């Protein structure tokens, strides 16, 4: 595949790709975990990393490595739900506001700017405080999705606004295309890279937000995610007691995951950038 060969020339893609496949391997491993994710006291507690417990064990009596595999899986589930659903809202708002223009544009953008300016984090916390027990994986994802679309709706709208003025929009309308097929055939190929990179940024944001919600104790703490593992580690004073392996695992894994996602998305969106794709077509 020519594309892959080109992509690997970019060191960021190579690093991002390998990190992601390593983490993906961990997610797969979580299905073969010998330990139950929620049960306590399955292993001797507070053991430093050793051969049979690669990353040691924590004060809850669970193996840190296998807990971590569950944590990544659950965090990714939440983040993917949040990312995908917020994309749908962002694309809808962005395309309608961008294409319709006039009054609808002014209203939609008024709401979006309002949402941007208000510190959403606090309202999110307020809502989570009330939902508290109901915040299972899916619900947290939905909650984050509802608060995570405003920023990207704005960027998508500005790109649609510029596309609307381009002459091929009129050619497409004159060719009898309905608004829907116009958006699908003409605008999507040009906005895919933007939507893709905003998806990755939103996933990173969602993972960060989930951690903070967990620290505030607003999610179901028994389900292992990157946030809840960190929350337990802090609650049991892992830093003070020197259980560095327990607290560093979620921190390092989160950094690896987010750096990988970011590098992967930056290199992909540069590769998909319409200007460069056009040059590639020209050179065939």
């Amino acid at each position, binding site marked *: 595949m*020519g594309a892959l060969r*080109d992509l690997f020339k970019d060191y960021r893609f190579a690093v991002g790709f390998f990190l992601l496949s390593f983490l993906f391997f961990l997610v797969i491993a979580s299905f073969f975990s010998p330990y139950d994710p929620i049960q306590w006291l399955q292993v001797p507690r507070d053991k430093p990393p050793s051969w049979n417990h690669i990353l040691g064990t924590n004060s809850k009596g669970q193996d840190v490595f296998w807990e971590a595999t569950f944590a990544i899986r659950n965090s990714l589930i939440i983040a993917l739900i949040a990312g995908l659903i917020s994309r749908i809202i962002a694309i809808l708002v962005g395309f309608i506001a961008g294409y319709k223009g006039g009054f609808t544009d002014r209203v939609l953008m008024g709401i979006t700017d309002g949402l941007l300016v208000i510190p959403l984090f606090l309202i999110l916390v307020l809502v989570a405080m009330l939902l508290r027990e109901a915040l299972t994986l899916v619900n947290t994802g939905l909650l984050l999705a509802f608060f995570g679309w405003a920023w990207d709706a704005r960027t998508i709208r500005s790109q649609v606004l510029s596309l609307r003025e381009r002459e091929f929009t009129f050619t497409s309308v004159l060719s009898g295309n309905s608004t829907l097929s116009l958006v699908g055939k003409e605008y999507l190929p040009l906005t895919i890279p933007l939507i893709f990179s905003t998806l990755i940024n939103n996933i990173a944001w969602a993972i960060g937000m989930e951690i903070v919600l967990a620290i505030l104790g607003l999610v179901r703490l028994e389900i292992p995610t990157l946030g809840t593992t960190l929350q337990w580690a802090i609650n049991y004073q892992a830093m003070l007691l020197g259980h560095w392996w327990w607290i560093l695992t979620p921190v390092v894994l989160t950094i690896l995951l987010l750096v990988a996602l970011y590098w992967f998305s930056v290199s992909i969106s540069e590769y998909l950038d319409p200007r460069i794709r056009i*040059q*590639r077509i*020209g*050179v065939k």
Partner: protein
Amino acid sequence: MNGLIKVEQLQAFYVLEAMGKKKTVKAVNNVSLNIPENEIYGVAGESGCGKTTLLKALFASIEPPLQLFEGKVSYRINGKFINAFTLNDQEKRELRWTYISYIPQGSMSVFNPVKKLKVTYLDFLESHVRGKAGQDLLSLARHHLEKLGLSPQVLEAFPHQLSGGMRQRVAIALSTLLKPQIILADEPTTALDVVAQRAVLQLMRDIQQEYKNTFVLVTHDMGIHANISTRMAIMYAGKIVEEGPTPEIFSQPLHPYTQFLIHSLPRIGDKTTRKSVPGAPPSLINPPPGCPFHPRCPEVTNLCKDKMPALNNSSEIHRVACWLRRESSGCHS
């Protein structure tokens, strides 16, 4: 009539690297010419014929992907010809605007949008004139504008407050601020309406008559050349195909391409059908062998197909690069 710039066997190509494939675009292909003193020297040709690249070479600003393969561009500085490409960046910077300057095509976004024009003028002056206070430089600029019939009030405005025509005149005033000997203009009036264009051409003519400097005017519009250029070169596929004084070029166009360029232009009051050049413009990546115009030339011969005609004198001031036109100089076609 000695020349100001001598161009000898200049070959400047764009080397493009995409998807592992290397492509060289032969934009300026073995061009030699003499830019005279006290003249408006016109370069005519269509998009993709290499006239803008020739300007870059004349301006000695060759940056990747453009590379100099061969040839020299020499400036005549106090009597001596110096190869412009041997100058280092500092020397080049000093020559800019004091010896040679440049008028951009669209003046839409050529000035710093967030600063008054006064500040942009001062930027140029302070970079080239030493030992003068801001105020003196400003009065120098105001005086220059008044001399060109522009109100100095324009310096207090921001670029977006002026119309296209006025902005282009301010750009021309800026390019002639430090009295350079040569002013290169790349399609200076294409972005303007016909009335604004007339005013801008009028300004350029007045400046040339006033300061006796040389304008190198690049445009595809033969009407502008007829109107203002005193001497002309026609470029096609990176080569000069014909060169001579403008009245002679229009009265006796020798090269078939020049004939097409002139006769294909519609004129008010004359409805005779106009034919455009057959075929498609040549690719500069692999230009056709022999004379580059042969695929589109109605009088093509085998000689044209395999050997490239040199640009030589059909008369001592009128040169053409075409096998059919060489011997029978002065014949009317």
